[in-house]
């Protein structure tokens, strides 16, 4: 009877597990230890990119006694990552990386309280902003390269979007302007950028002007002049019986998707008793986001989700990833858009099971292969940054 039940469960689970075929799992960081703490958090969670046949991963760790940012690369078919190179000299946080093609990348990070960018390999570091700035992110389509960050403007930070120019290995800032000309009324941060098929630029960010954190969005046809910000969420702000200002939400992420579309995913606490849930919204090309859709399935409903992101490609593939501890310890989960809704939650096989596996970052390469990087925590041996890729069957 028990065997029959297990067989039935296996049969039922088969289509989900068969959806992706996973590669061998590799360790990215060459230096680990109980007192070394790698982090792959960043604005729009852009910690991995695939440029031609080269995979690049960025992170921050404190192996030298202070937080520094690193990049490790490997040929796609190689069985190991090459030793990492250090990107920063001063205290560095929240690095991101995007692919330029042909094995070249642009990385950006916060160092010494200001945001910087650099073409790799080669290239010199460019300071993107004179003012205090943080939480930098990048987006590229064809030859249009953009950066966004949170920049100090009076008492608060606000979102700035810049058009970058690339000549050879040299980067420069062609233009940089705040999404809104007015000084911010409260804190803004954690921007995410995407360039759609029509060349328009969409930016989302955390915004506290409504006295609680609301993901906001704006778009620009030319990358210079931005529309008035709109709410990404379909929840209104407001107090309950005179208490508070609204439910929480944080860390919006974006991806270009399909021919003209943009997809957003963020953490949302509208159901305030079960922690953050993963929510999504779509802009099919109208440059406005529609109704919000819950991403995770019902098995994740009574559990807090963390570190959510979305990746998409021009063919219409769209995958959301996050971590949650529904099975007792943090595991990395993914869900693929199925046309009308997100599909069943699937654990990333090598990022599930005993121990803590969390903080996913991911990208889809030109062939539609999904590349996922996450943290595998071990208090005694130290945290490993792990990598695996998956092909959709």
């Amino acid at each position, binding site marked *: 009877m028990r065997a029959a039940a297990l067989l039935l469960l296996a049969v039922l689970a088969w289509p989900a597990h068969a959806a992706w075929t996973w590669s061998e799992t590799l360790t990215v960081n060459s230096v680990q230890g109980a007192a070394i703490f790698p982090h792959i958090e960043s604005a729009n969670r852009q910690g991995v990119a695939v440029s031609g046949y080269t995979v690049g991963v960025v992170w921050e760790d404190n192996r030298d006694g202070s937080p520094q940012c690193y990049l490790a690369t490997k040929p796609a078919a190689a069985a190991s990552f090459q030793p990492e190179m250090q990107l920063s000299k001063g205290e560095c946080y929240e690095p991101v990386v995007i692919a330029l093609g042909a094995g070249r990348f642009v990385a950006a990070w916060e160092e010494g309280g200001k945001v910087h960018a650099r073409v790799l390999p080669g290239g010199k570091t460019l300071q993107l902003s004179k003012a205090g700035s943080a939480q930098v992110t990048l987006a590229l389509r064809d030859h249009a390269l953009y950066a966004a960050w949170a920049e100090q403007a009076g008492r608060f930070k606000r979102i700035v979007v810049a058009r970058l120019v690339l000549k050879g290995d040299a980067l420069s800032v062609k233009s940089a302007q705040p999404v809104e000309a007015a000084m911010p009324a409260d804190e803004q941060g954690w921007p995410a950028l995407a360039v759609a098929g029509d060349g328009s630029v969409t930016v989302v960010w955390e915004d506290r002007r409504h006295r609680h954190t609301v993901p906001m969005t704006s778009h620009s046809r030319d990358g210079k002049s931005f529309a008035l910000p709109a709410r990404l969420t379909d929840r209104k702000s407001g107090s309950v019986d005179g208490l*508070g200002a609204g439910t929480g939400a944080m860390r919006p992420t974006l991806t270009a998707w399909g021919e003209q579309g943009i997809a957003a995913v963020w953490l949302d606490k509208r159901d305030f008793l079960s922690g953050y849930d993963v929510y999504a919204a779509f802009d099919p090309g109208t440059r406005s986001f529609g109704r919000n859709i819950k991403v995770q399935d019902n098995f994740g409903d009574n559990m807090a989700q963390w570190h959510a992101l979305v990746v998409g490609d021009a063919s219409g593939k769209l995958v959301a990833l996050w971590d949650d501890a529904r099975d007792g310890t943090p595991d990395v989960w993914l869900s693929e858009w199925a046309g009308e809704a997100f599909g069943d939650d699937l654990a990333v096989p090598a990022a599930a099971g005993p121990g803590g596996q969390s903080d996913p970052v991911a990208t889809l390469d030109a062939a539609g292969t999904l590349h996922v990087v996450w943290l595998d925590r071990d208090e005694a041996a130290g945290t490993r940054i792990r990598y695996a890729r998956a092909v959709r069957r």
Partner: protein
Amino acid sequence: MIIKMMLSAACLLWAGTVLADPPKGYPFVDFDAGLKAAKASGKPIFVYFGRYGCAWCDHTNKQTFSDAGLKKLYSEHYALVYVDAESGKRLTLPSGERITEAELGARLQAFATPLFVYMTPQGEKIFQAPGFKTVKDFQDYDRYVRGGHYKQKTLLEFLGGKS
């Protein structure tokens, strides 16, 4: 000069009330300052893990933390720390790891705010309690923590055993 100083003080006061929502009149500080103060004083740490605009935090502030006796009890005997659940502000854990205030929520598996975390003066977690709490709850928690009962009993055992 006096007007300038008053304006500066007013700005600082306003900044303190808009960036986060700790209860008024309590000497809450950020995580790093609280850990440093606790190590120096030997006082346990009380972490108020709140969220900007959180209705239940607001409710707890008005209904519970407004109590003068509770304010005196916790202000005198704890290193009071306020953490903003969605903030990117950085803090340093006792292990030496630097994370954001929001990431602390992930590490604590926080599913609701407010979340109250009691720690030893060295920053080791004793227990955490989510949601609205009464003055009586906080008085019980204080007896559990400062009485050292957590070394022998779980909080439920301690609360179940009291009369």
